[in-house]
């Protein structure tokens, strides 16, 4: 999908990957400071199609394949951002953060603060996240909690094509470093089982989604399901199913972890009195605990039942399908958790 193609009819549908690329391409057209770098972002177009077509459209000066040296090229993005460029740099899988985290969390995220606001680092760090296709313990993680725990970077996680475009546009225009994590399972890739909502309507032209605003993707009165990324779709599927059984779920798609939209969570829990957090990241010391804490540090009496969590239970992601699906936040686990909550 490139901007030089005739624009699609109103209501046109795009995959999440194409929506993401469209946002990057539009910003590259709009702002010559924007450029893209990373492994296989050029002729391959991104292993998960996050940059497809950009090399053809913008050429090798603005779409740069890098050696496998994440520390060097993420650092390069940082230095370029410091000098006023606006790089979009891809870490192919978020699982690889361990080879380059120092650049990310000690430099990208801290320079603005350490400099007393005198140096800005306007860049977007993209990475693919998530499992479900037997890619094993080093290629299936979400890890958003790890990034969100460390100060100085915004963290966004789109679940659908329109948000993918809107959040990418906002991220590129943001004067802060933004970590943009896209789940492989929502990209709409032709070679991976995909959620039916991974292809959907995407606004043409300028489209921004505010960073830091959650989205109530399904209103409901009995249980609040706070979630994000691929799990949003599982939650919606379960909600649809349980609606038939008289259980009315409200589903909150966080979209941003940093800043976290606490008010939307509180409003919802205030209404339903029941909270389930569904998270494909590891269970402990992460997002699910944070969401629960934000509620009970305001008012524990909002909860009519114990808060519940469905997440990866502190285990490396196993390879074999029966094991992997035992630890992923599957619709079955979500359904059971909701039913436990309303039974309580």
């Amino acid at each position, binding site marked *: 999908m490139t901007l030089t193609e005739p624009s699609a009819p109103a209501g046109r549908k795009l995959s999440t990957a194409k929506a993401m690329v469209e946002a990057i391409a539009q910003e590259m057209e709009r702002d010559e400071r924007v450029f893209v770098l990373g*492994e*296989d972002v*050029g*002729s*391959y177009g991104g*292993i998960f199609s996050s940059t497809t077509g950009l090399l053809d459209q913008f050429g090798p000066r603005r779409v740069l*394949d*890098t*050696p*496998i*040296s994440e*520390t060097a090229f993420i650092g390069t993005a940082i230095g370029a951002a410091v000098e006023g460029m606006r790089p979009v740099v891809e870490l192919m899988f978020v*699982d*690889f953060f*361990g*080879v380059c985290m120092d650049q990310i969390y000690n430099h990208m995220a801290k320079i603005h603060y350490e400099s007393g606001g005198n140096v800005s680092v306007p860049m977007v760090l993209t990475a693919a996240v998530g499992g*479900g*296709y*037997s*890619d*094993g*313990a*080093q*290629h299936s993680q979400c890890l958003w909690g790890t990034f969100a725990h460390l100060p100085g970077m915004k963290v966004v996680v789109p679940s659908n094509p329109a948000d993918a475009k809107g959040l990418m546009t906002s991220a590129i225009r943001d004067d802060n470093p933004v970590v943009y994590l896209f789940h492989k399972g929502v990209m709409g890739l*032709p*070679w*991976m*089982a995909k959620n039916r909502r991974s292809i959907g309507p995407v606004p043409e032209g300028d489209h921004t989604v505010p960073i830091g605003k959650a989205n109530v993707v399904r209103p409901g009165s009995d249980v609040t399901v706070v979630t994000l990324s691929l799990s949003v779709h599982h939650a919606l599927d379960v909600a649809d199913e349980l609606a038939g059984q008289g259980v009315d779920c409200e589903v909150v798609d966080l979209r941003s972890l940093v800043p976290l939209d606490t008010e939307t969570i509180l409003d919802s829990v205030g209404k339903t009195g029941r909270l389930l957090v569904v998270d494909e990241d590891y269970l402990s010391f992460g997002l699910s605990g944070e969401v629960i804490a934000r509620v009970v540090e305001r008012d524990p009496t909002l909860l009519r039942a114990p808060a519940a969590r469905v997440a990866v*239970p*502190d*285990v*490396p992601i*196993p*390879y*074999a*399908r*029966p*094991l992997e*699906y*035992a*630890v992923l936040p599957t619709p079955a686990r979500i359904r059971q958790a909701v039913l436990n909550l309303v039974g309580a």
Partner: protein
Amino acid sequence: MEAQDRLDLYRTMVLIRTYEEAILREYHADKKPVFDIGAGLVPGEMHLSAGQEPVAAGVCAHLTGDDAVTATHRPHHFAIAHGVDLQRMTAEIFGRTTGLGGGRGGHMHLFDPAVHFSCSGIIAEGYPPALGQALAFQRRGTDRIAVAVTGEGAANQGAFHESLNLAALWKLPVVFVVEDNDWGISVPRSASTCVTSNADRAAGYGIPGVRVEDNSVEAVHEAAGQAVARARAGEGPSLIEVHTLRLWGHFEGDAQGYRSDLDGVPGRDPLPTYENQLRADGELDDAKVAGFRAAASERVEAAIAFAKESPEPDPATALDFVFARA
């Protein structure tokens, strides 16, 4: 080289190729009509090593099961050449309880402590643990060594540099192997590496560096022999880069649209090359070739049958083995 040694190299190469072809077949067998990476009996990423047999065969001919090998995301050829249990390895790739990791690891995470074999899916990060294995061997006063493998793309990663420096400094018995198959996924060597030979980088660590240009198993065998002897003699590490060939895609499903050298690939296949050489030298004929292939096929199909017959893991065990029991 002795005829028997040459035939052993050939046998290893045939076994590897037979294995990779069988995995290729099994991998794609149940991913149709539209390729779905997560579907089928062997799901997930699959990085096959066809074309790179000379490296594994040539290096591992010098090792015993007491030596260690750390391999990469593309590990099968080294696993096989180093004598990893073929049935349990295959069962792991099929995600079965009888697999090396009981199905928890998968094709990029094969651990066989019986022959000190491991691999990792993170680029160049298999190098550092090899140093520790070598240190342990050295401390026990043995002449056991560790072989650490990466691709040429990986040689630009920080872990490569740190490992070479530390191994050289501590004179650890390590042989560093770089498989230069010209590509790191879609990125050609020229777009990733600022020098033409990683062997030239060895000088930056004061260790011997050799580049084997022609993907010849015998040339690899020769270079590795020197490096292994040096390591066993307590003289420290060496680096060997082999210009080899990625016969297929980076992983299965890779359409290789980016690949400028695709036309020339079949003609560079090292297996017929070596076979023809051995034929020309009178060491192989049709019957012998057929015999090697049949033997390989039998082992490989037995391993695949073993895997398929093995039970799938019980979901209730998913949390086992996060921690060792006291």
